[in-house]
């Protein structure tokens, strides 16, 4: 089982302490999907939690990818999301297929799946809150909220959505869940120049979230060009060191920079430089 999660990343991927926020950043060509899948895997597969705390549940909100993509990649790790959905341990909020596409007919919505159809921020957060409530009814359970590419709302929202509103919405959702994993794009062209409203809003949101995050795992391509056996670099930056090491008995959080390689079969190798 431990082979599915790279051993060097194990301390970071295990279920985070309560109320923590983990930020994953990606760039074009170095996507964070494999890391998201492994967060979900370790949350749903790890059975070491004391029974009185109940099951860990995952609510995945994805604005760029559909459920089929996540299912296919989870299956490679031996995780059956359909089965987990019927057990009420996994739920999916689809922010892709209905957000800007006019609804046509009524597609059958399966258990544990919700399709967002109104791009308005309050409507979206209401839908997500509703999904969280549905899953926290039985009390003793911890919900891990995973939001994939929340920054899309900022980009497509135009003048109506500002960075502050995104952060407020995120804060509202964090109140109701155990911990949150968030992925954002951190391409230099989105962050560095800040000339257009799109860029400055994105930079503001990204920096705001980065400062509140407990730790950040940022993915990027190799600085020195491409290599056959390296897909990219993952840099782990720990925010508020004390709070997170207190609550975590196991591995100590360290700032690290590691290389990773993703094989054709979806397997991931993580190694230090020079190994």
């Amino acid at each position, binding site marked *: 089982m431990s082979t599915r999660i790279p051993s060097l990343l194990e301390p970071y991927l295990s279920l985070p302490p309560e109320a923590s926020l983990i930020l994953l950043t990606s760039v074009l060509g170095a*996507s964070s*999907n494999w890391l998201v899948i492994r967060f979900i895997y370790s949350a749903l597969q790890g059975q070491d939690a004391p029974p009185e705390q109940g099951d860990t549940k995952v609510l995945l909100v994805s604005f760029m990818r559909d459920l089929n993509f996540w299912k296919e990649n989870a299956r490679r790790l031996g995780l059956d999301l359909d089965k987990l959905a019927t057990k009420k341990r996994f739920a999916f909020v689809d922010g892709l297929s*209905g957000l800007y*596409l*006019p609804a*046509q007919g009524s597609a059958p919505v399966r258990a544990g799946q919700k399709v967002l159809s109104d791009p308005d921020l309050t409507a979206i957060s209401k839908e997500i809150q509703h999904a969280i409530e549905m899953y926290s009814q039985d009390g003793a359970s911890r919900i891990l909220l995973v939001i994939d590419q929340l920054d899309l709302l900022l980009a497509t929202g135009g003048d109506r959505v500002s960075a502050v509103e995104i952060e407020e919405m995120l804060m509202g959702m964090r109140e109701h869940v155990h911990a949150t994993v968030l992925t954002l794009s951190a391409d230099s062209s989105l962050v560095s*120049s800040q000339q257009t409203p799109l860029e400055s809003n994105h930079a503001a949101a990204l920096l705001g979230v980065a400062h509140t995050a407990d730790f950040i795992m940022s993915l990027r391509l190799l600085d020195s060009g491409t290599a056959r056996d390296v897909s990219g670099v993952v840099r782990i930056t720990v925010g508020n060191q004390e709070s997170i090491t207190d609550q975590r008995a196991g591995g100590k959080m360290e700032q690290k920079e590691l290389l990773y390689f*993703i094989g*054709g079969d979806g397997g991931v190798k993580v190694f230090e430089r020079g190994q």
Partner: protein
Amino acid sequence: MSFRKRNVGVAQPGDLSAARAHGDKAPVPGVRPSPLDGRLTTSTGTKSLDALLAGHAGLAMGTSVLIEESGTTDFGAALLRYYAAEGVVQGHNVHVLGMNESWCRELPGLSGVDGAREKEETRSSDERMKIAWRYERLGEFGRSRDRSIPQASRQSSGSHAQSIFCHDFDLSKRLALPTPGQLQFVPAALRQNLDFADSKTELSPFTNFISHLTSQLSSSPTSIHRVIVPNILSPALYHSEASRPENILQFLHALRALLRKYPEELTAMITLPSTLYPRTAGLTRWMELLSDGVLELAPFPSTAIAAKASSGVSTVHEEPPQGMLKIHRLPIFHEKGGGGGESSGFGDDLAFTLSRRKGLVIKPFSLPPVEGDSEAQQGLDGNQGKSTKVDLEF
């Protein structure tokens, strides 16, 4: 012969019908399963581009490619035309957005239609001989993974003359236009509606594209569709309102949703003038993030081409490259995280050449020996090492 006998013996009636079912599914012209993971792919109409797409040997269905081109040339349009022509020849539905009917008059025709068909057949059978039997079967029945496919059914589906995945086109010929329904054009709303009543409803300039695509896709669910958007956001074609982030990004998001909704029917190819929308801008980056594949064409300045053409062609048999191609993202491959696709060419220096017969050929870039240098080198060789020593002393 013993293996065949065993095959017959093991094959159960259920298996046979399963193979039939796949056999019915396979003959969709122009679509074949990827050798990597069996997902359906279709050809871009450009062989060397098909080969680049991370080992899938074609553009995976349900994905899109964004082609950025700098400068005033339009090599991207050539790629789009091959993609459209391939779709027309294979009988796919082609939707051209933002253009009118005149665009399709310049689609390249099939090269050597009369005699070539036979030649193509023999060539493809030659190729079949070379490919290991196991992989060849994977190519046709990769999805089934069924060991007990009767040989007869395999051959019958192979003889369907639909084995051509990517045709050869000739730029100097014109494609005979197909039945009217197959090629469809949705012009961009150039002029904004000045009525006050309409401005309240805030119709995006791309709304008619999306409504066209949704109605077309839902009305013919089994056929294959190709979406082509030439020069998106170019001020010659689109109103400035279109390039507001909310409009264009919402369109691309909706297109992405459509691609995911019809993962076995739809592919899309878009070109973007990157001189007007540079890659350093946040808007362009979001357009790239919303596309599955991102390619950048960087043509050499025309003077360089002319100079090289005059000197290079006579001596070197190969045509000089006309520009560089950069791969920023590949469908499927980068969505998983990248890596593992050694044949992808991601990060390599690639050059492209557009020629009349071969179409757009992409190959690794290598600098030809500079004319003057080679003479100097020959001179040095003739004068032996001594003179070089003398030359070096000063």
